């Protein structure tokens, strides 16, 4: 599934907790309904982004694993 994001946030090379912290900052800058694409190289971000999505209520539309990259599409819901 590919989508056109409204914003791209590259967290490559950053460790916990920066991918979720930077994602939360970026999502606040979007309009409701807009989509953020976040790129991480942290394998721990998979479980973290799922938890972050459940806790914040912003849905994780899709997550992909491509080589050493973990790519997430998150929609601002509120």
């Amino acid at each position, binding site marked *: 599934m590919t989508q056109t994001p409204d914003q791209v946030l590259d967290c490559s*090379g*950053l*460790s*916990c*907790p*920066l991918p*979720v*912290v930077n*994602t*939360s*900052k970026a999502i606040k800058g979007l309009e409701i309904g807009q989509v953020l694409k976040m790129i991480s190289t*942290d394998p721990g971000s998979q479980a*973290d982004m799922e*938890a*972050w999505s459940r*806790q*914040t209520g912003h849905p994780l539309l899709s997550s992909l694993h491509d080589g050493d990259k973990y790519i997430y599409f998150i929609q601002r819901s509120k």
Partner: protein
Amino acid sequence: MKSDPNVPKRLALIASKGSLDWAYPPFILATAAGAMGWEVGVFFTFYGLPLLLKDLNTKVTPLGNPAMPMKMPFGSEGFQSINWPVPTLAMALPGFSEVATSLMKQTFKNKGVASIPELRSLAIELDVNLVACQMTMDVFGFKKEQFVEQASVAGAAAFLEYAAEADVQLFV
């Protein structure tokens, strides 16, 4: 536990250690919880109190810290994986703590881990409540003016009341 799902969850932390290594858990947990929209309060007590100082100067030493790996943040992958067997007596030499501190800071930087000052700034940005222990201030002679301006001052009863309403309470 909150019964209303619309009320944000609350995390109550006690930060009781102020060395470079032990400064990480409270700040990582506080910023991660803040990023999830949780309300967060960190009570800085005993050796954790200096983490509120405007001039942050956290250090680490392997002395009395036998689980701490002594690894180099440069060179080939094989070289970096060596856990150097430093004799305990050598760890007591002047300047050893400074060397160990700079090696750990460099390792963290290489691995994309935020520094303690960066994490503390993020915590402030995420409205984490930073609370200084009044008793520790009195014992060790700290003044509120020495702390970041966002810090407030309270005692054990105030923390316990806050923690009683929290979903997660941790002592670090």
